[in-house]
């Protein structure tokens, strides 16, 4: 009987979460489409031809997977952090806390919301990319699984940020000071082969490098790093963040007094 209750609760959270970002699509879906268009116009069409080839592809082809990944990362993170913090701030998180829902169901619901936002934005951005370059998928399973796993990982990150955030400013600290630098240094715009050896080694501590490269491998068939290593590392991160999030929810951190 409980399983049915939990499933209904889970579905409700997902409906609520997806409904939320669709309702405010001008703030959630449109901006990544616009910024992607700008990236493609500037880096792809204007500057790209002067850069020449990278790993055997035109520059615009090379950066497209990275840019799509960047949107997925930013949006899955943003979805959960703002939704969860908003629920805390307006106190309607209490609607879930008083109900007989275990925390893993709440966690699952928010993550799913983040995945759906990541995937929808990913598709929108891919459509934008198709106006500027051709894209074909080399390894379907890798593309699909890396998109889902990346969304899960950054949804968890967003949730943890949302749990710790005490005011609205706190929800932009991680994106500004951690996420954006890691994305820009994560091989979205260049192959790390271009870097001196030392910086190549440093780059390998950046988890986003693995996601961008795995995704690029799925589309273009080229990667700076080993694909198995990439999946292993992402999986480990997901497991750690999942249990950390669950631990925070179980202790009522930031949501119960």
């Amino acid at each position, binding site marked *: 009987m409980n399983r049915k209750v939990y499933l209904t609760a889970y579905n409700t959270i997902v*409906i609520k979460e997806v409904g939320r970002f669709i309702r405010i699509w001008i703030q959630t879906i449109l901006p990544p489409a616009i910024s992607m268009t700008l990236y493609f116009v500037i880096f792809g069409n204007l500057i790209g031809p002067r850069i020449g080839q990278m790993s055997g592809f035109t520059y615009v082809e090379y950066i497209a997977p990275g840019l799509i990944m960047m949107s997925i990362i930013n949006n899955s993170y943003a979805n959960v952090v703002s939704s969860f913090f908003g629920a805390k701030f*307006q*106190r309607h998180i*209490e609607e879930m806390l*008083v109900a007989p829902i275990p925390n893993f169901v709440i966690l699952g619901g928010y993550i799913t919301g983040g995945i759906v936002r990541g995937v929808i934005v990913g598709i929108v951005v891919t459509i934008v990319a198709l106006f500027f370059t051709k894209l074909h998928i080399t390894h379907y399973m890798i593309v699909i699984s890396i998109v889902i796993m990346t969304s899960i990982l950054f949804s968890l990150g967003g949730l943890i940020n949302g749990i710790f955030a005490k005011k609205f400013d706190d929800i932009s600290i991680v994106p500004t000071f951690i996420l954006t630098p890691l994305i820009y240094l994560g091989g979205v715009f260049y192959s790390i082969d271009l870097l001196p050896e030392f910086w190549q080694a440093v780059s390998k501590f950046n988890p986003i490098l693995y996601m961008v490269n795995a995704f690029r491998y799925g589309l273009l068939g080229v990667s700076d790093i080993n694909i198995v290593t990439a999946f292993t590392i992402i999986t480990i991160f997901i497991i750690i963040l999942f249990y950390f999030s669950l631990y925070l929810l179980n202790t009522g951190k930031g949501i*119960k007094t």
Partner: protein
Amino acid sequence: MKALEIHNLKKTYANGVQALKGIDLEVSEGDFFALLGPNGAGKSTTIGIITSLVKKSGGKVFVYGYDLDTHSVDAKSLIGIVPQELNFSQFESCMEIVVNQGGFYGISRKLARERAEKYLRQLGLWEKRYDPSRTLSGGLKRRLMIARALIHEPKLLILDEPTAGVDVELRRSMWKFLRDLNNQGITIVLTTHYLEEAENLCKNIAIIDLGNIIENTSMKYLLGKLNTETFIFDLKIPLEKKLSLPDFILNVPDAMTIEVEIRRDQNLNELFDVFSREGIYINSMRNKHNRLEELFIRLLDKNNS
């Protein structure tokens, strides 16, 4: 069967405030129970712990026999909560809020919609069901929280100041609504600062002050304990000389007003005789407090001294 049992419940907040100092409370099935107390007494803290929103520092809570620590799913399913502060999304419609709450309790969307219609109609919110909740008036927002609390048909309904800021007419209709629910067998626990409301609705009562229960008894017994009543007389012409009424406890705030405390064994006729004799003409008279208010103030005074 006890709908609610609380044993030695304690709460110390992170900032060191000791909000509950070990309270015991029992509410029987079918009761209409008032939890009264001044601002900051610990009422909302108690309710917060019962509804899993506040972490207790010690003690036990049982809801229909289910231990909140070990059987929280069973216990939570039986409770409906109308909190003191608004806690729904400002951007969702009434319908969404109520139906989603049903979903959190595992109720299918179809059934939740049917029930939502029933309660939104009963509470006068049906016309506004698709309006964003932030556009409702204050009184209707409170009613929305009542509809939301009923969606899973709880056996124990807890309302934290449901009529705060609600006009007289809405308040009366809310009373009727709550009384009907209680007659259908739902146990109700309510906090309020309108003592008239508690006197009107509730069968049993607990008074909490500074984190302790200072009175826990039936409304009848409590009111029976009150053996004096204070009347205020407004005079037609100002008092000229100092008045003395040896048998009565007297207070003269100004020359146009006399306050007299009257014991049960005295009667007003004696008083009026004195007034006539002294040439005092009364324009109007009224009770100083309602009866419960008088008792309440005395109990608190006693607790604070």
